[in-house]
């Protein structure tokens, strides 16, 4: 069984192995043992409400219960930009027009903003190569939305995700080469690393503060603004299907997009239903494809657990769970659990009816 649960200190070795395999790109989880240990502690403090709600970092492990090994991780940062400053560029439009001369020019313009300050970020998704199948990535990602919705007051109404921007095999970012490097005496990698570990004073000191008119940048730089690294494209697709939109914010260094959604608009949230647990001793057919499975969450803040079961377990008021699943979820008969489809529920009704 594959089970979502809070990350624990015993997961450190598994986590370190995953971070090492991920290499660069995942700046919030560098392969640094001390830093990862610190993150685990911070996550435990968050689940146990031993820290300020704003400082909450909720990290979820995907455990393969047969292997008793953590094979994936995903996270929620309750609020960004409260301890340090959180920067983005906003791609805005400047229109210069003269009716008299018949000229109408639209100029995309980057404005430096801190607009995501105090907003909830979903972050740190990692999945072992061995488990990249059967909707495990979806489970890791979407379980967070059930958590966000059930514990709304801990989070902002809007949540966002930063997507890795375009860079080549050597780690060169076209936007950095055209823009950042003109102002920062360092390599893209160093700037990215300093930002990742929260040392951001240098940005306030060195960053250009006035708007940047994009036509002044060379084409390769302009073209990557708002585009994701090819490795990140599947994650972006998943978030878009979930209802996340690109709304103009991009990373100040590589131009990768920020996608955002209001929690109540997220598909997993909208398609969730609650059911009472009914214990039934008939074993589950675990070979059901992802499209016919549903996520089941125990709705616990402190010991949040999610797994998937076949959709046929659902009845109008109840869901039948075998004892091992109920045990893994730490629920008993009569408890209320939350359900949501693991994959798309199919096209919206209007398109189903024809026309």
């Amino acid at each position, binding site marked *: 069984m594959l089970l979502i649960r809070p990350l624990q200190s015993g997961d450190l070795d598994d986590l370190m192995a995953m971070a090492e395999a991920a290499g660069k790109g995942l700046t919030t989880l560098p392969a640094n043992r001390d830093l990862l240990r610190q993150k685990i502690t911070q996550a435990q403090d968050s689940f146990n409400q031993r820290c300020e709600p704003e400082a909450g970092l909720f990290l979820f492990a995907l455990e393969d219960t047969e292997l008793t090994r953590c094979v994936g991780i995903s996270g929620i940062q309750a609020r960004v930009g409260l301890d340090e400053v959180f920067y983005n560029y906003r791609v805005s439009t*400047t229109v*210069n*027009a*003269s009716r*008299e*001369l018949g*000229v*109408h*020019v639209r*100029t995309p*313009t980057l404005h430096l903003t801190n607009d995501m300050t105090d907003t909830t970020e979903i972050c740190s998704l990692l999945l072992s190569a061995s488990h990249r199948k059967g909707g495990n990535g979806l489970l890791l990602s979407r379980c967070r939305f059930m958590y966000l919705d059930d514990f709304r007051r801990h989070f902002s109404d809007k949540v966002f995700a930063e997507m890795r921007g375009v860079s080549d095999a050597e780690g060169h970012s076209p936007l950095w080469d055209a*823009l950042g490097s*003109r*102002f*920062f*005496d*360092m390599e893209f990698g160093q700037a990215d690393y300093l930002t990742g570990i929260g*040392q951001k*004073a*240098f940005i306030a*000191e*060195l*960053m*250009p503060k*006035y*708007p*940047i*008119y994009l*036509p*002044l*940048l060379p084409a390769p730089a302009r073209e990557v603004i708002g585009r994701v690294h090819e490795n990140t494209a599947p994650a972006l697709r998943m978030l878009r299907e979930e209802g996340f939109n690109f709304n103009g914010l991009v990373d100040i260094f590589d131009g990768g997009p920020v996608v955002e959604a209001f929690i109540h608009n997220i598909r997993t949230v909208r398609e969730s239903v609650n059911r009472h647990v009914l214990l039934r001793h008939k074993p589950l057919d675990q070979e059901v494809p992802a499209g016919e499975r549903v996520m089941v969450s125990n709705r616990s803040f402190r010991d949040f657990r999610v797994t998937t079961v076949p959709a046929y377990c659902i009845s109008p008021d109840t869901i039948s769970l075998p004892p091992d699943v109920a045990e893994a979820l730490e629920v008993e008969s009569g408890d209320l659990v939350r359900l949501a489809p693991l994959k798309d529920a199919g096209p919206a009704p209007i398109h189903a009816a024809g026309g």
Partner: protein
Amino acid sequence: MWLVRPAQPQDIEGIMKLAAEHCSQLSSTVPKTREGLEARIELSSNSFSGALGPDQCQRFLFVLVDSRDQQVQGVAGIDGRAGNGQPFYNYRMDALIHSSHELGVSRRVDVLYPSHALTGRTLLGAFVIAPGLCDSDAFELLSRARLVFIASHRDWFSDDMAVEIQGIQTEHGEVPFWDSLGRHFFDMDFETADRYSGMLSKTFIAELMPPNPIYVTLLSGAAQQALGQAHPATRRSVSLLQQEGFHGGSYVDIFDGGPVLEVRTSNLKTLVTCQRKSLRASDAEDGEQCLLACGQGADFRCTLAGISESLNEVIRAPLSVLHGLGCESGEDVMVAPL
């Protein structure tokens, strides 16, 4: 004899001929159309005559003619107030220093700020001369006659002056500064923008110019090199202006990045050195070559002449010069050394 005098309606043909022959490369604010030129000369006449006051867009247009045939060989102008009652646009060059104490790095960041700070200053402009005269004294006469005019009508002009020097343009007519900056926003070629900017309403600049400061480092290499640089063809003009006390300041043209030179009016060499004298005829044909001007307003005339000084308040010039200036013996004149 070379003579500089206010432009008159009968000069239109000559000015158009001159502009058509010699202005193809060198930009200028002389109107290209007959209607434009007629209007400009009328405005100039009203300025010279005093019908317009200093607060009403005085724009003076002078011509250089050979007194024998009255053929126009050059044009030069003064705008009483830059912008002529509307904002006068420039970029002001400034630098910020981006410095990180922790990382121990520091970088100078050059920035161009949109500025109207020169609005209302007296502005020299519209300078065109027949190429054959580029190395002659007539060049200096045409350029400096304006300053003698300012000296003799001091209260019409402001305390600080400016002159826009044409910027870098390649032999193929490309303007690197424009191509890297203005082109993206004005959606027209340099010629067109330059022509519109010579017109009275500058609304299109307010509408089309990027309103935020520009980081120089993001411009093309050629544009960065052109920033604040004068076109080679303006060499003699610039050199004369520098001798007068004009100096490159912090301002450049928004279209071609050419420098704007500035000076305090009272520091102009011509204003410091020129003197009011009483002119008498002389028999001698030689003497120290000087700028010699007489007449107020529309009657202003300026020429080059060999001058001999007799008494403190009197200078002498050949009778032909008096005739050429249309001036009687004993009349007051302004005289300034070359």
